[in-house]
């Protein structure tokens, strides 16, 4: 036979038809040569197809259940077309049940579609074995999976379609699972074999397009479901850190303006009130904090009251503030002491832009003279106070505007941080719910918020 003819051989049929020995129905064999058992779609009897002579293994007389994915239907997942050829319903000892569909493509072998009613995962049997990196962690290549379900028995409750092993209702395997966001690692053991499967979580849209299935329940989250907040939280924290730095730099660079000495005014020694008007003071920002500080350099054993009034020249709007400086000193058996400060600092928040006059009403008060005992010299000392010409008191008033409030810095941080905080709380809630089904203690953020009640469970 010339080779050209060989190359043009027509494509082989992909499906082989069998007659069910129990009910006579025509059963399609979709993975001929690989399949070992087939469950008749008409009577649910389990057939052995390893021999050309189809044998009846277990006879049933029951109509097949309606499945979410019709056996024989096809869908494309991650670029590969798959045909659903088998279905298993399995359950664990604790009562949790799930569905497994066996997918086949002659060029790509087998895959599994697994769902417990929430989402769908695509499973592939591994030809490599993962290894423990520590008691809780299984490594597959360089990817770490955290333990989730411990070894427990899973039973086959219902089968339909064809399989590459001798399937039976009631068959049990011992399974354990490890998870990482988006994928799960499962180990199944029976008396003869240990096999590993890695499943990746599929997007429900992807599954709807491929096999036309409905969206499942979305809460509680699945063991390997990635937290919807985890993805942006990492980026969010980086942005937050960046903004924090930037704000700090901005405040250090532009936050303050220099103090302007507005004036130096003598204080009446007899304690009468004086008034001075300073201005104009130009405030350029839309709103700003205005800081006023006063210094009475030679204040000793007395006080100075300061009433400030900021008056907008245009609107006559008034902003009032009050300050005081007081200082006392003396000497006693413990030595010299001082109390109070010669300086006074006050601020007026949120002053609108404009040209202002600062009216300062001030008066000083002190004892005209006092006698103190000077221990050092062992004698009493007469202090003439403000009556002394050298001690002529004066007040220095300084003003600055445009300074950012530290509080506005914190408000900015709060505004930036609030979505992060909400995201973090939601992430923790999600992760707690996700790990609630686990056989092991919570890990990660969920462990931080673990209550004592959880410990007792």
């Amino acid at each position, binding site marked *: 036979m010339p080779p050209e003819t060989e190359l043009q051989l027509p494509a082989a049929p992909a499906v082989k038809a069998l007659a069910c020995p129990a009910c006579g129905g025509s059963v399609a064999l979709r993975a001929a040569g690989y399949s070992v058992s087939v469950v008749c779609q008409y009577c649910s009897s389990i057939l052995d197809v390893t021999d050309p002579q189809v044998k009846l293994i277990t006879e049933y007389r029951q109509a097949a259940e309606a499945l979410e994915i019709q056996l024989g239907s096809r869908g494309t997942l991650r670029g590969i077309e798959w045909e659903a050829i088998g279905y298993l319903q399995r359950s664990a000892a604790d009562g949790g049940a799930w569905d497994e569909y066996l997918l086949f493509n002659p060029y790509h072998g087998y895959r599994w579609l697994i769902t417990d009613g929430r989402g769908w995962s695509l499973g592939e049997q591994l030809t490599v074995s993962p290894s423990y990196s520590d008691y809780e962690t299984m490594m597959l290549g360089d990817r770490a999976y955290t333990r989730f379900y411990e070894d427990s028995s899973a039973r086959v409750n219902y089968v339909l379609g064809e399989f590459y092993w001798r399937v039976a209702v009631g068959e049990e395997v011992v399974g354990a699972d490890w998870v990482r966001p988006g994928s799960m690692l499962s180990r199944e053991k029976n008396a*003869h074999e240990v096999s590993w499967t890695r499943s990746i979580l599929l997007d429900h849209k992807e599954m709807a397009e491929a096999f036309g299935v409905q969206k499942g329940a979305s809460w509680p989250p699945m063991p390997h479901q990635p937290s919807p907040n985890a993805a942006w939280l990492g980026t969010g924290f980086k942005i937050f850190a960046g903004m924090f730095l930037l704000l700090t730099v901005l405040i250090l660079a532009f936050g303050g303006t220099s103090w302007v000495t507005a004036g130096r005014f003598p204080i009446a020694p007899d304690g009468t009130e004086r008034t001075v008007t300073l201005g104009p003071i130009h405030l350029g920002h839309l709103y700003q904090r205005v800081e006023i500080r006063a210094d009475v350099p030679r204040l000793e054993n007395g006080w100075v009251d300061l009433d400030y009034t900021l008056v907008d020249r245009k609107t006559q709007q008034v902003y009032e503030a009050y300050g005081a400086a007081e200082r006392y000193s003396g000497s006693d058996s413990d030595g010299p002491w001082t109390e109070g400060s010669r300086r006074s600092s006050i601020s007026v928040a949120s002053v609108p832009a404009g040209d202002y006059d600062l009216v300062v009403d001030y008066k000083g008060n002190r004892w005209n003279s006092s006698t103190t005992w000077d221990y050092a010299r062992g004698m009493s000392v007469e202090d003439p106070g403000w009556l002394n010409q050298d001690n002529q008191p004066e007040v220095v008033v300084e003003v600055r505007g445009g300074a950012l409030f530290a509080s506005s810095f914190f408000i900015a941080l709060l505004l930036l941080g609030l979505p992060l905080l909400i995201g973090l709380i939601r992430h923790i809630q999600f992760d707690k719910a996700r790990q609630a089904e686990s056989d092991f203690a919570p890990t990660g953020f969920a462990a931080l918020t673990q209550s004592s009640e959880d410990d007792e469970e």
Partner: protein
Amino acid sequence: MSLSVNCPNCGAEVVFRSAALPARVCDYCHSLLSRSDTGVMVVGKSSPLPFDVSPVQIGMRGRIEDQPFEVIGRVRWAWTDGAWNEWLLLFGDGSHGWLGDAMGQFMLMRERPFSQVQTRTLKDIGKGKEAVPGAEITLDARKLTIVDARDVLCIAAEGELPFTPTPGWRVYSVDLRGPKGECASLQRDTLATSFYQGHYVTLAELAPTGLRAFEGWTLPAYAA
């Protein structure tokens, strides 16, 4: 040396490509033929291969480990719970290897003289001991696990082969697997023990051309 003769049974042309592959199944009458210095003779009859949907077929070519290969033979083995194909690959340098095709997974293995195998457990199995699935052994400083041990039966064959695949030939077969995709297989019959060693491969890694086409299935992009 390649040898072209007429099948002593049906007269169809049969080709023996290598002296290392003295067995052949006639493509037309399924006679088992054996080549020797005295010529080609009929030594039995093979059964027709059952229909399967394996993507591999005689004539498929590919490339692996920097060597081109062609699929020139196949033996189909069965055990109580299934069956699989062992495809014979003839490499560009004249050597041959096997492509195991079971449960949708592929294993590339080459024969290794069993006398080279120093592992006590494997030597004992070669001498007739039973293998224990789950047991770990060390071979060339690598850990392998016995995953399977059972009697298997040759049910059919095609093409050129290094041995005569008599249907009904019973072999005790032990499969081993390593953590990084390594695999090995020990085959023992009443006369001898042979040993094969290799690793899992994907069809894509074989860069195949001439894959078998199936109605309703699209060939993978790499093979189109």
